[in-house]
């Protein structure tokens, strides 16, 4: 995998959040403020533009550029969280032109660590962590088991989607939804939903490349 993998990942995310924009807005309207879809679209639109304008940076630098772009265009909670996540992930790769599955796990792990550090959320708080953490763990475990990257990423995306659905019955403890108290129960977390899209987009991007 190389810079092109990152670029197509970001493109896939852009396509996915555009397609799911209204759904994300709806989910956020129920327990937040109804802007998550707009936020993600604005952010990844800008990311794709920034990557298009880039003149051949290595994959780590592209991730950092993507993260910086999210921080500077999204706002809200998701902007700094995903922005810092991609920046931290990018730093793992340094200037290397290629990376393998093992390194991809470290990228995602760094991203997760950054989200948890900045947002102080744990699994079960009804946030994007509920989708991202199982994805990272599943990917790491499958690869350790010797499963092919493609297949492992598919499992990771499924794990993110399971985590996403698992946010429905629980009460939020972080972010805007926590202000609702018990009324947040019964609704799927928008950030976990977009996170599942992001992991699924990664699987698609890597699949295309191979």
């Amino acid at each position: 995998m190389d810079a092109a993998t990152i670029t197509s990942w970001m493109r896939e995310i852009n396509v996915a959040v555009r397609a799911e924009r209204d759904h994300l807005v709806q989910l956020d309207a129920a327990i937040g403020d109804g802007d998550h879809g707009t936020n993600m679209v604005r952010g990844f639109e800008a990311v794709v533009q920034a990557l298009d304008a880039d003149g051949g940076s290595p994959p780590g630098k592209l991730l950092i550029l993507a993260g910086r772009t999210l921080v500077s265009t999204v706002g809200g909670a998701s902007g700094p969280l995903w922005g810092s996540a991609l920046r931290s992930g990018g730093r793992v790769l340094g200037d290397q032109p290629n990376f393998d599955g093992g390194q991809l796990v470290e990228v995602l792990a760094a991203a997760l660590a950054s989200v948890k550090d900045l947002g102080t959320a744990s699994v079960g708080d009804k946030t994007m962590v509920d989708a991202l953490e199982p994805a990272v763990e599943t990917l790491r475990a499958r690869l350790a088991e010797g499963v092919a990257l493609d297949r492992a990423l598919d499992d990771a995306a499924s794990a993110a989607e399971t985590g996403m659905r698992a946010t429905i019955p629980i009460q939020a403890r972080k972010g805007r939804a926590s202000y609702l108290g018990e009324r947040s129960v019964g609704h799927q977390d928008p950030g976990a939903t977009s996170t599942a899209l992001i992991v699924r987009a990664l699987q698609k991007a890597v699949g295309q490349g191979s």
Partner: protein
Amino acid sequence: MAVETRNMRKFLNDPSQVVKESLAGLAAAHSDLVRYDAAAQIIVRKDAPKRGKVALISGGGSGHEPLHGGFVGMGMLDAAAPGEVFTSPVPAQMLAATKAVDGGAGVVHIVKNYTGDVLNFKLAAEDAADEGIKVTSVVIDDDVAVQDSLYTAGRRGVGATVLAEKIAGAAAENGADLTKVTDLVKRVNDRARSFGVALSSCVPPASGKVIFELPEGEIELGIGIHGEPGRRRAALGTASEVVDVMVEAVVTDLKAKRGSKVLVFVNGMGGTPLLELYLVYGEVDKKLRKAGLEPVRNLVGSYITSLEMAGASLTVLELDEELIKLWDAPVHTPALRWGV
């Protein structure tokens, strides 16, 4: 575009440009007080930076007008960083604002307690520190509808923000240092409590749809300022009954001693007319006196809003002589002006 605006009873061109266009209009109307840096999307006091003066900046999602852009000017904020509607601004905005107003005496960031605002301001403060600017941050969290516990993101910042900006802004104007100004923001936050109710939802321009459906005859109790549903839904009672809930929630949590002088802030959410806000003020005034508090200052109007939401919030600030003097000090901003 015409199609997108169809659902809304709004003056809009391109919904994605509403914040920028509104800020440009604000600056055109008040060019004696503020300027609009369109590239950075910030409103800056016209005579900033003022050498030696502690500067105050605030920011947050738009849709709460006049907060914050309407409070930039003499005796209040030095700059405001407005994000998209109901979306925290990005760190670059707060960084640009901080740099534009720093007069060497330090910059206070007044941050409403929402995850997005807190995180984006945090990144900006780090960047500003890297550039050698002294920055302090105070997080406002006066909304008693939310319990501050391990199981929430803490209380939201609502009405106290306006009062803190006015009072600390006056101190900064008078030459108070960074520690003093910062402490005043904290003190106001500490001695103020708020509670809001929604009588309708509101319609963000980007989606064109109400955030939540509120059947006639029902209200949301314990709302914030982002058009979000509140802590619970209840039947719409009389104004007196609704005010009972608000006063009770605020007074119980404030725990001011009997006879305390208070500032009463009856705030409209954007779609509730002054006819009703003054009726509410009358009820609040009576009930607070009955609860042993003495309203000696007040502010009645729509100052921290949720677009066109019908509803109101009550903020009560326990006063002392210093706070009274700073409240009364001259202020000259688009939305708040006296003594000048």
